[in-house]
């Protein structure tokens, strides 16, 4: 894990003092709400329906045990005993008082954490593969590059008032577990024919009201030009991205309107200029950062056998653990999707337990996934049963990873001031329905994602089944989408037809899954069957 040196710590500490001063001036009336708003947003503080919401950055989703303990303490001290893990590998607290926000940030700084640039029209927290360093298929660990980008983008003086927010994801394996092509910049670290590491740049993806899959604008940026190329991409966007209409201000619209070729030409021109400016950190800095991400001291010669005699454990083992690059180890995923629960929520006690498990069993490390679950990345297989028993006892033992119960949902109208409809009750009803009918296991991998408005924080475009909440003449209405995917085969879901009320959408989802069960061929997932048979068979069953 990356550790701050005195430079990093001084920057975060200064930020806390700056925000303490800004908050004081706001409370004294010296700053208007209009002037204060972008300042608090750049510190992750939103004004929501009932209170302030504070979003904490978890760079590339990686946390130590001590950091997870601190997040738990904050949930107890400043919130109502819960934290909400988000689709951007961050955590949000929903009941924050403005006067206490500077103290909360000071508590974070004590464990090398912050809320810098988790909101606002600036470069947001950089996300990455939640299995980085543990997956067998990676070219290199993507996190050192993500950390290099974190430092470059933190307080970048030129890019604090972009046309719109800006999200960067970095991966380094063929399997995309970070929805890379649905980011403003998606970076895939690759190795060229000469064996050198470099970065493929995908620019202009995103969800929201105009979902787009990012085109590749350069196959290989040498690793010692990564920051310079990123700066060129941002400068062209800052100059020419639209500012006349908030809904057309993301970089995807610029790339779309200019065309990939013209945008790329402008970036290359700026890149050639910036190469003369000496803005790239030396490779020694990347090497310094990379030492923090060296493999932990894995034991060798461990057996891969696991005692499967407890059927509940065997189910969890099959569903929630994945192969690790090191023999005798596994990746274990803790589901934050108990049947009938709020997706991504964890209590103070649950967070403390996860922190303890990370420390004791996973080299003091855990990860937040963009699917709102928690990963223990490096677990000895011999310890899995003990871990599962403790998770079960804490209500964290749901064996439903990547199933229809593993729903991504935004906070929706229960919390969010932008939402048109509630997301959480729909997620709760769907997981209950499938748990009651017992079909969850039979349906296998089925990614269901719910957004409470067109901004798509719940990634509904990328769900095998997506649900979009809209407001129809004052009542909540839910549209059904099918066929989205965020992985290597990224695709955008299509709307099936007229929307439904809250109970109707649950029925419609079940009817769609029935089509799959009736029509699937050997080895097909829901998405595969949908792609083979097409939307009409599903429409007929849903509306017929």
């Amino acid at each position, binding site marked *: 894990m990356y550790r701050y040196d005195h*430079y990093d710590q*001084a920057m975060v500490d200064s930020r806390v003092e700056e925000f303490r*001063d800004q908050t004081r001036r706001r409370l004294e009336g010296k700053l208007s709400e209009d*002037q204060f708003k972008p300042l608090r947003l750049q510190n992750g503080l939103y004004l929501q329906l009932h209170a302030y919401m504070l979003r904490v950055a978890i760079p590339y989703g990686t946390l130590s045990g001590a950091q997870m303990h601190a997040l738990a303490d904050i949930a107890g001290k400043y919130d109502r005993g819960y934290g909400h893990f988000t689709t951007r590998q961050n955590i949000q607290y929903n009941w924050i008082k403005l006067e206490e926000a500077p103290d909360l940030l000071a508590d974070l700084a004590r464990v090398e954490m912050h809320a810098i640039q988790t909101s606002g029209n600036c470069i947001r927290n950089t996300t990455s593969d939640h299995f980085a360093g543990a997956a067998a298929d990676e070219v290199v660990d993507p996190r050192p590059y993500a950390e290099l980008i974190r*430092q470059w983008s933190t307080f970048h*003086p030129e890019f604090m008032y972009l046309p719109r927010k800006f999200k960067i994801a970095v991966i380094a394996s063929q399997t995309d577990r970070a929805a890379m092509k649905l980011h403003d910049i998606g970076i895939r670290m690759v190795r060229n024919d000469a064996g050198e590491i470099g970065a493929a740049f995908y620019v202009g993806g995103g969800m929201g009201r105009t979902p787009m899959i990012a085109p590749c604008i350069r196959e290989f940026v040498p690793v010692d030009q990564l920051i310079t190329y990123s700066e060129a991409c941002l*400068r062209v966007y800052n100059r020419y991205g639209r*500012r006349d209409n908030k809904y057309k201000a993301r970089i995807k619209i610029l790339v779309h309107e200019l065309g990939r070729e013209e945008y790329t030409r402008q970036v290359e021109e700026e890149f050639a200029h910036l190469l003369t*400016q000496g803005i790239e950190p030396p490779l020694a800095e990347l090497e310094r950062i990379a030492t923090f991400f060296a493999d932990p001291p894995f034991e060798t010669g461990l057996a891969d056998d696991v005692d499967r005699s407890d059927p509940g454990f065997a189910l969890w083992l099959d569903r929630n653990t994945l192969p690790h690059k090191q023999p005798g180890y596994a990746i274990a995923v803790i589901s934050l999707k108990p049947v009938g629960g709020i997706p991504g929520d964890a209590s103070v006690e649950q967070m403390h337990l996860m922190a303890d498990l990370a420390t004791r069993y996973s080299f003091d490390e855990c990860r937040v996934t963009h699917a709102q679950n928690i990963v223990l990345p490096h677990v000895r297989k011999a310890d899995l049963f003990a871990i599962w028993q403790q998770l079960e006892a804490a209500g964290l033992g749901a064996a439903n990873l990547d199933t229809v119960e593993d729903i991504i949902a935004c906070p929706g109208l229960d919390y969010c001031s932008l939402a048109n409809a509630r997301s959480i009750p729909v997620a709760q009803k769907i997981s209950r329905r499938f748990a009651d009918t017992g079909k969850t296991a039979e349906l296998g991998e089925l990614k269901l994602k719910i957004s409470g408005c067109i901004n798509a924080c719940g990634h509904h475009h990328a769900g095998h089944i997506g649900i979009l909440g809209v407001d129809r003449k004052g009542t909540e209405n839910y549209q059904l989408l099918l066929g989205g995917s965020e992985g290597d085969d990224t695709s955008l879901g299509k709307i099936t037809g007229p929307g439904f009320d809250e109970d109707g959408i649950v029925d419609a989802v079940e009817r769609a899954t029935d089509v799959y069960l009736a029509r699937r061929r050997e080895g097909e997932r829901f998405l595969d069957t949908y792609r083979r048979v097409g939307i009409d068979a599903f429409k007929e069953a849903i509306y017929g």
Partner: protein
Amino acid sequence: MVELLRFREDEPVADPAVTVDAFLDQPDARAVRIEPGDDVSVLLPHLAHVQLVEVNFPVFGDGRGYSAARTLREAGYAGELRAVGDVLLDQLSNMRRCGFDAFEPERAMDPQAVQAALDRWPHDYQPAADGHVPIWKLRHG
């Protein structure tokens, strides 16, 4: 309270700043004013005798002027670079980093608060137009 903040030793130019379009018709003008939508690159061939570039911020949330400033400095412009308009205390530090060395805010500022804002940051993660040594260079020499 101050209405014009300058971080330069030379005397300010008294000439009124002309628009970019007007400047291109009279390229011997010494003062020019850039609006957010202007393409700053058209000025680059004519910078030798320019002594003042004003960059207008009609609203502080429109950040195009930061890139305009850096582009000018990276092209070697050494004259006065003045941010005018909706220029607020909390943006001064970043503006200085991007190469602005004068500020003419719509509302006058308290010099003490200005100094505190400019002294806020002990270090910088990136090199920019202010010549500050970035943290990575401090780490590696």
